[in-house]
């Protein structure tokens, strides 16, 4: 038998805010076995008396960063773990993690494309790992990200996404803002629907590999629409999260 995926101690190297409710944590993990873009890790918090809780978080960083893993966590006010991470954890703290976990919602550069990534809110995190991996690997496969956020201040990784899109290596990002749009907004301004997907997919064609991550309603809508748009089911990979912080 191989060994189980061991719990290991990460040291928090840096903390920074992505949006008012989303924060990234850079974890130093000298013993990390490496991951594939799209995978997640388990995190465990333990109190003095032994009481402990576990959660899974998508990995945001690319596999090329050896010994370092970044996670991006949305604060769920009613939750038990994300408020702790946001309010208590500071650089120098240690956290128990294990991973990597998950072998289906992954993309490696040799898989190729074209690639269509669709994110709702913090569902962008595993897709960001794919985009960072794509950039670091020098892959030039035609790639588009369709990213649904509620308002302009809630776009996670906004600056980095703009920078990646400006590199001229075949990556473009399309935003939709569902609740609030700033003056002069030229992007989409509604929930993701089939017409929007058809427009974003059009230049990529029917052999596109798609990865969708976000709330259940968005993922259901997108996956059903992609089937109708002619994408084979095995090229429609999904990852979902719901409001499960209670």
């Amino acid at each position, binding site marked *: 038998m191989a060994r*189980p*995926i061991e719990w290991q101690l990460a040291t928090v190297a840096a903390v920074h805010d992505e949006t008012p409710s989303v924060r990234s944590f850079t974890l130093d993990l000298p013993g990390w076995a490496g991951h594939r873009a799209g995978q997640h890790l388990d995190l465990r918090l333990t109190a003095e008396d032994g009481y402990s*809780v*576990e959660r899974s978080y998508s990995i945001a960083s690319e596999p090329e960063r050896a010994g370092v893993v970044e996670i991006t966590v949305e604060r769920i006010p009613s939750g038990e773990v994300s408020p702790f991470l946001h309010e208590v954890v500071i650089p120098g703290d240690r956290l128990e993690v294990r991973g990597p976990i998950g072998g289906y919602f992954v993309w490696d550069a040799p898989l190729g494309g074209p690639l269509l990534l669709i994110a709702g809110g913090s569902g962008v995190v595993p897709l960001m790992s794919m985009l960072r991996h794509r950039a670091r690997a020098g892959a030039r496969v035609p790639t588009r990200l369709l990213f649904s956020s509620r308002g302009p201040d809630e776009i996670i990784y906004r600056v980095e996404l703009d920078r990646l899109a400006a590199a001229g290596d075949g990556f473009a990002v399309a935003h939709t803002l569902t609740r609030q749009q700033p003056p002069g907004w030229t992007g989409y301004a509604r929930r993701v629907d089939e017409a929007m997907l058809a427009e974003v997919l059009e230049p990529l064609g029917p052999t596109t590999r798609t990865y969708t991550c976000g709330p*259940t309603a968005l993922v259901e809508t997108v996956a059903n629409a992609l089937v109708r748009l002619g994408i084979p089911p095995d090229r429609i990979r999904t990852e*979902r999260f719901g409001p*499960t912080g209670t």
Partner: protein
Amino acid sequence: MTERFVTRGFVGRRGGGTDAADLRRRTPPGQYLTTDFPVLSAGPTPRTSLDRWTFSIDGLVREPARWTWAEFMALPAREWTVDISCVTKWTKLDMRWRGVSVDTLLEGVDLDPAAAFVVASCDGGYTTNLPIADVLGNQAFVAYEYDGQPLAPEHGGPARLVVPARYFWKSAKWVRGLRLQARDEPGFWESLGYHNRGDQWLEERYSDD
């Protein structure tokens, strides 16, 4: 190595009282309770119309069985109220289903003595594997109602296998048949790093846990 590690500043949000203790007792290790019904699938939700739906039992049986939707609805069914745990860490208590016990489905087919494992197959190509011992004795059923309503497609409707004593990926959505085999055969998630048995009380999440 880290059995004694304590996370700085972590206390937890534990409720008090006997109710809280009872809920904790029903929550497997590493899980948290939720009241909603999260949806997790690796791909699009398949749609099979009921007039084309069948459920079959084949493999190491003397007489394979096959039911249409109408025939399946005529099988003896019952209500089940069970606690469900997903490997993604949520546990939901007292989930109410209606469906047909796997014992009932296997009654008529006359199992070959060599049959030791079951592979559930589904619309969309999903599979999961279980030892026969894990599904007999009313431990598993094929559900077509949840909470008094027809099972919704995103939750596996028209019918899904439900195996409450295992992590929820063993409760295959859109199930269309069971194949009896002499040899074990890892299913979809069992081939992608998840545990072959998946007992939530033993926290058998990943391959070598």
